[in-house]
């Protein structure tokens, strides 16, 4: 009735992109709002 699931800490998107040799420039132009996740009318 009780389970423990170990959590791994992943890399950031920036780190993965660097490893894959992807130019990062466009990430700096990304815009958004973290609160968008919690807008019910968007679900």
């Amino acid at each position, binding site marked *: *009735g*009780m*389970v*423990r*699931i*170990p*959590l*791994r*800490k*992943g*890399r*950031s*998107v*920036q780190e*993965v*992109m660097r490893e*894959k040799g*992807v130019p990062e420039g466009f*990430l*700096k*132009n*990304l*815009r*958004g*709002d*973290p*609160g*968008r*996740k*919690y*807008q*019910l009318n*968007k*679900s």
Partner: protein
Amino acid sequence: VAYEPLTNYLDSFYFGEISIGTPPQNFLVLFDPGSANLWVPSTYCQTPACGNHARFNPSLSSTFSSIDVTYTLCYGFGDLSVALGYDTVTIQNIIIRNQEFGLSLSEPSTPFYYLDFDGILGMAYPGIGISGYNTLMQNMLQQSQLAEPIFSFYYSRNPTYSYGGEVILGGVDPQLYSGEVLWAPVVQELYWKISIEEFSIGLSATSWCSQGCHGIVDTGSFRLTIPGQFMSAFLQALGAEESDYGFIVNCSSVPSMPTLYFTISGAQLPLPPSVYVLNNDGTCVVGVESTYVPSASGQPLWILGNLFLRQYYSIFDLANNRVGFAQSA
């Protein structure tokens, strides 16, 4: 909603393994109290993001049933479309039968191609999940899979890829925290949303929450999210400057920066600068971002993400609709 530069591509996420199907197919999922649906990449999806992750193949599972319904799921960092199906989900030694889940049909490359995890396991209330289908937590409760209707999160202060912490389904581990648990009632049974009564920067109470603030406790978010209307004053109080990589401060000044205090259920929860300032390769960044989305009832909205929860072991109590915080070990 005001769209400002995003910095969450600089953040890490924490995830664990589950299995779906018979025989089981393994996936790394983000355990996310900020959403309520379970989805994983699938062989229906041919976009590069899916090709770069483990994909569920329904034709290889003897227990899979399809549902002829598709949905778009929205997250802070991007949206994706899914088809619904049922199958057996296995988490460690717990087996949840006939669990509804999404099989991705299309995932945009940014950010999904570059994420280390495959899918997301939502742990919020059913009211924000796809209507008419049970969430995984609902099914676990209905199938009497949990010793207690509780789950809890612990984040290590020195996380690594192999161990960043743990999520405990069905209980808490008192060895992972110290002191008393502070309980805060959930204000709306959709998200794990609680009241924040006051926010102080050092010894100075800001009164920003004098008309009430709400905070969503969300391990699926990394930074501390501050209501947009307070961001400018907050950064000024900290002496932080905006740059391409967020709000930077001089690393040598971090020890003398103020502790932040959240007053919740009448008690002050401190967040020292060693926790809220992130050192990214020698650049010290205040781990905050802003939102212009208010709480549904109009209060300024905060999001208490991994950064806050590294400091506080968090307990999500489904039976009593409350969130508990205790000093993390």
